[in-house]
């Protein structure tokens, strides 16, 4: 196989934007569970955001579990209109007895829209 036929990861001489972080670093998620109450918190580096409408939860049977999230920031996009997002930190409150599957997604501004992340929060 010639050199050119190998696909390469390139340390490119371009630098306007940082390379996208791995999802766990882009959207560092922690949670605290006390009985039925679950508090979820995310911390994001500068330049990363989570979509409010894409933070969702479901139970073990796949049924929607109610989730409370605070108002986010309206991200005004001249081309694509307003969208509600969280910069820096985000939180969600859930009250549910059993295991919860939490799903969320976000982007690196002008860089990458991440595959949705799904995390199972076990029952107490």
């Amino acid at each position, binding site marked *: 196989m*010639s*050199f*050119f*036929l*190998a*696909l*390469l*990861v*390139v*340390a*490119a*001489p*371009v*630098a*306007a*934007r*940082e*390379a*996208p972080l*791995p*999802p766990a670093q882009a959207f560092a998620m922690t949670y605290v569970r006390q009985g039925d109450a679950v508090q979820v918190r995310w911390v994001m580096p500068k330049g990363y955001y989570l*979509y409010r*409408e*894409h933070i969702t939860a479901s139970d073990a049977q796949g049924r929607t579990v109610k989730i409370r999230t605070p108002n986010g920031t309206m991200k005004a*996009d001249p*081309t*694509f*209109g307003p*969208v509600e997002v969280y910069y820096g930190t985000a939180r969600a409150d859930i009250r549910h007895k059993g295991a919860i599957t939490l799903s969320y*997604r976000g*982007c*690196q*501004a*002008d*860089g*990458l*829209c*991440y*595959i*949705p992340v799904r995390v199972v929060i076990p029952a107490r």
Partner: protein
Amino acid sequence: MITRRHMLALGAAATAFPLTATAQPGFPTLQEVTVDPDVPVLGNPNGDLTIVEYFDYQCSVCKHAHFDLLNIVKADGHIRWMMRDWIIFGEVSTYAAQVALGAQKLGVYETVSSALMRIPGGNLNKGDIFGAMMQTGLSPADALKAYRADQARIDALLARNAVQAEGFGFSGTPSFIIGNAVYRGALSPNDMKQAIADARQRQKATPV
């Protein structure tokens, strides 16, 4: 030892350094990625440089990047741009891909994919797609009919795209292969032009 992550991090901060590259075990081959007659091609099908994009119609960053790259490709005139749908945002993205790939069968892929890329927002519904299609002169029903007539081939393509994207370990969209180099995430127009020039330089230095 320089890991893939290091290499990518270096990529973000290596303006003054010479190009550095390394092959990665487990990646799809360049031939698998760039030789595939089922993939829609924009730009010049006989161009001297191939760009492969993995994207999702519900990815807001993809939409921004699409029209920037379209301008670059048109101005260059010698770029072969392969559009690989990688469905990461669910059912509506699948529907959009089916409509677009059905339109490909009917010879109007660029018109339809551009219309889908112009839909506002990153959270689409089928009504949005219907509305966008109405501006193209092709109905979603006609595009879907063309998709269903060739469903096995198109579904296999979508599955192939996903396997490749996962093989590269991409975390999301858009992600690119430019020449023989892997780029995760969108590039600014200037960075994209530089990446294209770098790819041509590598091809010139080491022709196939």
